[in-house]
């Protein structure tokens, strides 16, 4: 991976795209649409600035299902600040106290904390701000930066590419195996902040490691923005377990982010975003097998409450075969929240012997909440298997009575059902401290929505 340009191949453009009509235009896989193309960081920033000035705030729409509009986001009222010096309390409070390989914390626009295990540093592991990576490891950073992330699909994507500061950069050299996680933290401490987070993670040949990203905000009144861009590239035989813990608190935080994980030859990624809070969240999360023998598991949980709005587009992309994929998401909604999930399996021409499966299970917990889940499959190869399944559930009154008859009160019974619903995915984090954190947050959200859940049960 030290060679400029890397060895991961770019994919051929696909010939058929789904729903070519205007309304669906934004629900496409990124699919090799990286902006870099040999341009320097300065050139990319300039192009992004130009795009930013021309683009409007985006609207995502699935006709008949949902609309995600940023109309209520007042960009002019937000500022990117770079004078933070300390780790925000919300980060200290949230992150579990546990062994770790390293930690980098960005507050608003500034990286305020970097630590890396000394032995790992000696083995050549790099963990620093992305700014510093460009200054000190320019060739490596330039070779991969924005390789697969575009910069002009919408205004906030352009804003990220033009304005990002700080940023996180992680490089794990060939053959280095790390048990404890690298923690990457984006924190927003107060209202009025626009945070443009930018992460680049490189796993060189046969490396094995874990990355835990935390996206957290203090409970403030008023608006803030996190416009994130995350890219990870795993070289031959590399293995990574990637997890995000996202909880933007009770403030009016907008999170519009794009994440791309590219899996190289015989490499493997297990990726699990836990989306547990945010006023308006729009994610494009794409996990792509870029070379033969790549394999991945793409898991996700979400749990929306009150008036939260969540819109996730999760892509399972196979650019070549043989390859494997397994996508499994679960989500609940309470209050008047709105959760929209679209899962896409895309298998490119020539990706023979690819086997993948997508399932999405949802549970509606209050009368005014709404969840939509759309699976789609785009296959351009013939020797493959690709299928999808899912369930839309409500609370099972028989199960509640069953547990009540054992002495659990109704609220406890509901909690058991919903936690049991998420449990098959949470245990796949295979990391006790993080599992506990996710469980606790879900429990907290359910407890807060207790009356609402009751109202739903009696209304039926």
């Amino acid at each position: 991976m030290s060679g400029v340009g890397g060895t991961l191949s770019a994919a051929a453009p696909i010939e058929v795209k789904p729903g070519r009509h205007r309304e669906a235009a934004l629900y496409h896989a990124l699919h090799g649409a990286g902006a870099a193309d040999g341009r320097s960081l300065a050139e990319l920033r300039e192009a992004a600035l130009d795009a930013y000035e021309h683009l409007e705030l985006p609207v995502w729409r699935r006709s008949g299902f949902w609309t995600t509009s940023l109309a209520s986001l007042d960009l002019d009222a937000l500022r990117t600040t770079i004078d933070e010096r300390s780790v925000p309390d919300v980060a200290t409070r949230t992150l579990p106290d546990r062994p770790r390989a390293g930690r980098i914390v960005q507050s608003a626009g500034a990286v305020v904390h970097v630590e890396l295990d000394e032995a790992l540093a000696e083995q050549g592991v790099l963990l620093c701000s992305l700014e510093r990576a460009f200054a000190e490891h320019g060739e490596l950073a330039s070779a991969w930066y924005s390789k697969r992330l575009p910069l002009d699909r919408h205004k906030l994507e352009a804003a990220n590419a033009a304005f990002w500061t700080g940023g996180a950069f992680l490089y794990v050299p060939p053959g280095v195996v790390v048990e404890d996680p690298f923690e990457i933290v984006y924190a927003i401490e107060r209202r009025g902040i626009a945070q443009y987070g930018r992460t680049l993670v490189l796993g060189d040949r046969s490396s094995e490691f874990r990355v835990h990203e935390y996206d957290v905000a203090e409970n403030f009144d008023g608006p803030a923005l996190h416009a994130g861009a995350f890219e990870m590239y795993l070289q031959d035989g590399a293995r990574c377990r990637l997890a995000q813990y996202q909880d933007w608190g009770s403030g009016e935080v907008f999170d519009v982010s794009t994440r791309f994980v590219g899996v190289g030859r015989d490499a493997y990624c297990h990726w699990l975003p836990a989306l547990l809070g945010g006023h308006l969240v729009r994610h494009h999360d794409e996990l792509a097998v870029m070379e033969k023998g790549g394999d991945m598991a793409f898991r996700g949980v979400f749990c929306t409450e009150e008036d939260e709005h969540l819109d996730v587009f999760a892509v399972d992309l196979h650019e070549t075969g043989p390859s494997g994929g397994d996508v499994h998401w679960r989500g609940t909604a309470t209050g008047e929240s709105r959760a929209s999930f679209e899962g896409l399996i895309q298998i490119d021409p020539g990706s023979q012997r690819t086997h993948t499966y997508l399932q999405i299970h949802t549970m509606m917990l209050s009368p005014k909440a709404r969840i939509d889940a759309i699976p789609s499959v785009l296959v351009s190869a013939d020797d493959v298997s690709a299928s999808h399944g899912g369930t839309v559930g409500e609370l099972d009154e028989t199960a509640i009575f069953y547990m009540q008859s054992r002495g659990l009160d109704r609220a406890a019974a509901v909690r058991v059902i919903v936690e049991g619903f998420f449990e098959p995915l949470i245990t796949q984090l295979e990391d006790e401290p993080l599992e506990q954190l996710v469980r606790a947050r879900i429990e907290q959200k359910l407890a807060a929505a207790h009356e609402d859940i009751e109202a739903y049960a009696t209304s039926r």
Partner: protein
Amino acid sequence: MADLEIRGLHVRTEEREILRGVDLKINRGEIHALMGPNGSGKSTLANTLLGHPAYEVTEGTITFKGEDITEAEPHERAKAGLFLAFQYPVAIPGVSVANFLRMAINAKREGGPRDGAHPEGRTLKGTGRQAGGEPIQLKEFRSRLEHAVELLDVDRAFTSRHLNDGFSGGEKKRAEILQMAMLAPDVAILDETDSGLDIDALRTVAEGVQKLHDEQGLGALIITHYQRILHYVKPQFVHILMDGRIVLEGGVELVERLEREGYDQIRQEYGDEVAA
């Protein structure tokens, strides 16, 4: 007064009156069998005793240990010492048998109702089970679980599986009795626990009930359509339910008579009474 006393119970569900005046008394340490043909109201009675919301008591009362529980929440009845072994146990995915049991034991141990959960502050007095309030120690839990697992002749690994999730019919029924053993109720209602069991599973389940009776003084109401479970658990009292009423009561000789004559004969004999 008996521990569990049902008086003049009328119950309707889905606009239909199913129970039409049931009287029954059950004490700790007594084993009762409630027999009856399909549709006679056996499961309605079982569900009503635990407060299933789909069943409405239109007349009569249920008292338990002197307390009127006719309108009590299901979990309050459970905490007071009632138990229902379900005819169709429900799968609870994501929760292991052991974890569920700990939750249930701790729920039972918890003091009165949660703050604010029941503003009227309704409690069941005299149960002796709400005091203490301390969650069960892991060590004590483990030893009790081990004992129960032996009693029910199940694998220890069984308790780390998700409750009833993917269980065979026999495993589900064993899991019911395992829960009963762990929760140590005063009176248990077993709703057609024998249905769908092969003879080995039936024997294990029945012997489990008998042992809990002998060791812990369990009182039981065994609801069944058939006689075969009663070859392994000996009831002292037998009640025959038809068309929502108990038409015949007696000792174990009633079971033998049913075996010889079948429900039709009894229906002919008591049919007029039922129709009246």
